[in-house]
C-alpha cells in the first residue's frame, strides 16, 4: 500500500506541478464552458483542429532540444521558408503547373499540398543548415540568439514580401500590382484540404481525420529517427557533448542535423497550420509562433534538455486546448477585452520561465 502511494507520489512528481495545474485549469475551463451552456462537442472539435494545426510546429522542438541547442525559439526562420514554399506553390498553380486537374477534386488538393510541403521542406532545410552553422558558433547562448535571429528574419521577410516578384492574383495586392497581401486565401489551393478529407462528423462533433493522421505520421517519422542509429548519436551529442566528443561523435554535425530537421519541420508546420486555417498569414504573423511552440512542448513535460514525442502531443493538446476553450468562455463572462490573448501571454511565458529556472537552478 505504502509502496503504491510512493509510486503515485513519484508519478505526480515526474508529471510535474505545472502540468497538474494546467490540466486542472483545462478541465475547470471545460466545466465552465458547460455551465455557461457552450456547445461542448463543437468546442472539442475546435480543440482537435487546433491540435492538428499546431502539431508539427511543436514537433519541431524535439530535434532541436535533443540535439542540444535547446528549444528552437527561432522557428520563424523555418516558417519563413515554409511560407516561401507555399507562395511558390500558389505561383506554380497560377501558371498552370497542375495542368488539367479538376480544381474541385481531391487529387488537385493533395497534389497542391504535397507540392507546398516539398517546396517548404526544400527552402527551410536550406535555411536550417545556415542557421545550424550560426548556432554552432554561439553555444550556450542559443536561446536568446535564436530569438533575435528569428525576429530579424520576420522583419527581413516583411521587406521581401513587398519586393519579391510574385505575380499570382491570389497573392498580390490587386490595385498596387506589387507586394504580397497580409492574408492570402487558400481556397483555390490547399486550404482546408486535409481538414475535409475523410472528415468524421457526428452532429456537431467533427474530427479532421487526415490532418491528425498527417501529424501522427510526422511524429512517427521523427520517433523512428530518434530510435535510429544516427538519432541515438544526435541525442548523445545533445545530452552530454563532452562525453560524446570523447566517444568520437561529431557534435557540431549532430547539432546542425538537429537544427536543420527542426527548421524543416517548422516549414512543413506552417503549411499545415495555414491549410487548417484556410489562409496564409504573412508579415508579423509568425513573430510569436516560436514562443507558443516552445511553451507547448514545455507544458507537455519537456525540459530545455529533454523532449519526446509524447511531450509534443500532450503539450499541444493542453496549451491549444486552454486557449481555444478560454476564448468563448471569457467572452461569455466578460465581453470586453481579449482574455484569451492575455492567457496566452501569461501561460506561455510563465511555463518558459519555470523551465529556465529549473534548468540551471542556483548554479554558481
Amino acid at each position, binding site marked *: 500500500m505504502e509502496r503504491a502511494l510512493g509510486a503515485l507520489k513519484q508519478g505526480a512528481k515526474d508529471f510535474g506541478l505545472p502540468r497538474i495545474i494546467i490540466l486542472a485549469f483545462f478541465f475547470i475551463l471545460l466545466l465552465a464552458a458547460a455551465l455557461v451552456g457552450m456547445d461542448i462537442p463543437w468546442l472539442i472539435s475546435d480543440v482537435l483542429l487546433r491540435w492538428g494545426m499546431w502539431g508539427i510546429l511543436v514537433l519541431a522542438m524535439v530535434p532541436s532540444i535533443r540535439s542540444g541547442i535547446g528549444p528552437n*525559439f527561432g522557428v520563424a526562420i523555418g516558417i519563413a521558408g515554409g511560407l516561401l514554399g507555399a507562395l511558390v506553390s500558389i505561383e506554380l498553380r497560377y501558371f498552370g503547373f497542375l495542368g488539367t486537374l479538376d480544381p474541385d477534386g481531391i487529387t488537385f488538393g493533395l497534389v497542391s499540398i504535397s507540392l507546398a510541403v516539398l517546396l517548404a521542406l526544400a527552402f527551410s532545410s536550406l535555411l536550417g543548415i545556415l542557421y545550424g552553422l*550560426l548556432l554552432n*558558433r*554561439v*553555444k*550556450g*547562448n542559443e*536561446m*536568446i*540568439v535564436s*530569438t*533575435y*535571429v528569428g*525576429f*530579424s528574419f*520576420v*522583419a*527581413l521577410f*516583411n*521587406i521581401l514580401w*513587398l*519586393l519579391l516578384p510574385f505575380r499570382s492574383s491570389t497573392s498580390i495586392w490587386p490595385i498596387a500590382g506589387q*507586394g504580397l497581401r497580409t492574408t492570402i486565401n487558400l481556397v483555390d489551393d490547399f486550404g482546408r484540404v486535409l481538414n475535409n478529407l475523410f472528415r468524421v462528423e457526428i452532429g456537431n462533433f467533427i474530427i479532421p481525420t487526415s490532418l491528425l493522421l498527417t501529424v501522427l505520421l510526422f511524429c512517427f517519422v521523427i520517433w523512428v529517427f530518434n530510435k535510429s542509429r544516427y538519432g541515438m548519436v544526435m541525442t548523445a551529442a545533445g545530452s552530454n557533448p563532452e562525453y560524446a566528443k570523447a566517444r568520437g561523435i561529431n557534435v557540431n554535425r549532430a547539432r546542425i542535423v538537429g537544427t536543420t530537421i527542426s527548421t524543416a519541420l517548422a516549414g512543413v508546420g506552417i503549411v499545415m497550420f495555414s491549410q487548417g486555417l484556410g489562409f496564409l498569414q504573412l508579415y508579423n504573423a509568425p513573430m510569436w509562433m516560436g*514562443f507558443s511552440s516552445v511553451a507547448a512542448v514545455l507544458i507537455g513535460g519537456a525540459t530545455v534538455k529533454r523532449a519526446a514525442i509524447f511531450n509534443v502531443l500532450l503539450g499541444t493538446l493542453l496549451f491549444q486546448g486552454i486557449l481555444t476553450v478560454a476564448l468563448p468562455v471569457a467572452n461569455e463572462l*466578460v*465581453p*470586453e*477585452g*481579449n*482574455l484569451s*490573448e*492575455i*492567457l*496566452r*501571454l*501569461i501561460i*506561455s*511565458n*510563465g511555463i*518558459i*520561465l519555470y523551465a*529556465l*529556472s529549473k*534548468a*540551471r*537552478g*542556483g*548554479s*554558481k
Partner: protein
Amino acid sequence: MGTNLGKFLFKNNVAILFLLLSVGAFAAANVSLPFLFEELFTRFSRNTFMVLSLLIPVVAGLGLNFAIVIGAIAAQIAIFLTVLWGGAGFVGVLMAVGMAVPMAILFGFLVGKLFNSMKGTEMIGGMVAGFFSDGLYQFLFLFVLGGIIPIANDQLMISTGIGVLNAIVLENSIHHGLDNVAMIHILDFAFFASLALSAIMLIVRGVKKQPLNLKQPAKVVLPLAVLYALGFIPAVGRFLSADRLMLFYAVMIALAIVVLYSLYHIIRRKESEKPTRFILYIVGAAVVFGLTYIPELERSLMVVRLPVLTYIVIISLCLGIKWFMNTKLGQNMRTVGQDRAVAASSGINVNRIRIIAMIMSTSLASIGQIISLQNIGTMATYGSHQQVALFSIAALLVGGASVQRATVKQALLGVFLFHTLFILSANAGQSLLGNAQIGEYFRVFVAYAVIAVALAMHAWVRKSNKQVITQIDPRVAATAASAESK
C-alpha cells in the same frame, strides 16, 4: 599613428557603420537639417534616460536587461494613479516618480531573485519575464481595474466601466510636467538647496569639532550665488524665465565651459605636464564655433529648443552613473560582472549584488518611462511599454556597447545614431525604393538585427576566449588577493 587609427576604427566599427548609414539615409531622405535636428533632440530627451538604465546590469554581468519593460510597467501604473488622483504639472511628475520607484524596487527585487536561479540565461529569461509581466499588466488594466476594483472616471475607463482606455491623454495632467519648469526656478532651487546643505555640513563639522574647511562648500555656493544674482538683471531674468533653451545657446554655453575649463587647467598645471590636450580642446571648441556660421547648421541650432530640466536630469544621471562606478558598491558590481567565482571568493555576496543591480536598473527604467511619457503627452496603455527594451537595447548596441561592456558615452552616441536612422528610414525608403513601408520595415529589421548580431558576436567571442586562459581585470585580481591575505 597608423595602427592607432586602425585600432580606433576597429573598436568603433559598429558606430562608424551606423554613422555612414545615417549619412547615406540623410542624403537619400530629402529632408531638411532643421527637421532632423528637431526630431532628433526630441527623441533624445525622451529615450536617453531609459537607455542609461541598461548600463548597470551590463557592468554587473547580467547582460542586456530585457526586463526594463517591467520598470516601464511600474511607471505606467503610477501614471494611471497620478491621473486618477488629479496630479498635474511638476508635482504630478514627482507624484508619479514617488509611486513608480517603490513598485519598481519591488519588481526589480523579484526579477533579481528570478535571475539568480537562471544564471547564464538571464537575457532570454529577462525577455520572457517582460512578456509575462505584460500579460499580468494587461490583466490588471483590462479586468481588475473597474471589474474588481471599482473606478468611477469616464476619462480613464472604457464606457462599460470595466477596463482602462486604450490611450490616456496626459494633457491636463503631467504633460510636459518636467519639461516646463522655468530655468529661474531651477536656479533658485539649486541656490537655496546648496546654501542649506552647506549650512548643515558646516554645523555638523562645528559640532564634531572638525576643521570647517570653508573652501569646499564655497566652490559650489559661490558660482550659484553669482548666477542667482545675475538673475536680478532684467534682461538675464527674462532669459531665465523661459523653460526651454535654444540649442544654439546651449552649444555656446558648452563651448564657453570647455574653454574656461581648459584655460584653468593650462594655468594651474604642474611644470611636468604638457598642456597639449587642453590646447586641443580649445582648438576643437573654436572649430565648432566656426561651424555654427554655416547657415543651414545655424538655422538648425536655432530651431531646437531643449527642455532644460529634462536635460539636467539626464546629464545628472550620466554623472551619477560615472560616480557610482567608483564607489565600493560599483566596484563590487564590476568584480561580480568580471567573474562570479572570484567575486565570491573575495567575500562579495554575489546574489545580493546582482539583485541590487536589477533593482537600480528597474527603478531607473521606471523614471525613464515617466520622462518619456510626460514629453509625449499620451500614454498608450497597452503599447507604450512593449517596445521599450527592443529600441533601448538596439540604441545602446549601435553606440558600440556589447553584452559585457557599456559606457555612458556609448549610450549617448547610440541614441543619436539609432534615432537618426529611425527618423530618416521611412523617407529614405520612399525616395530610394518608392515605398515608405519598406523604410518602416527596414528600421524594425535594423533594431532586431543589431541585437541579433551583437548577441551572436558576444557568444562567438566568449566561446573562442574559453580556450585561452581567462584574463582577469587587474582590479579584480587585486581585490581577490587582498581578500586572500585577510
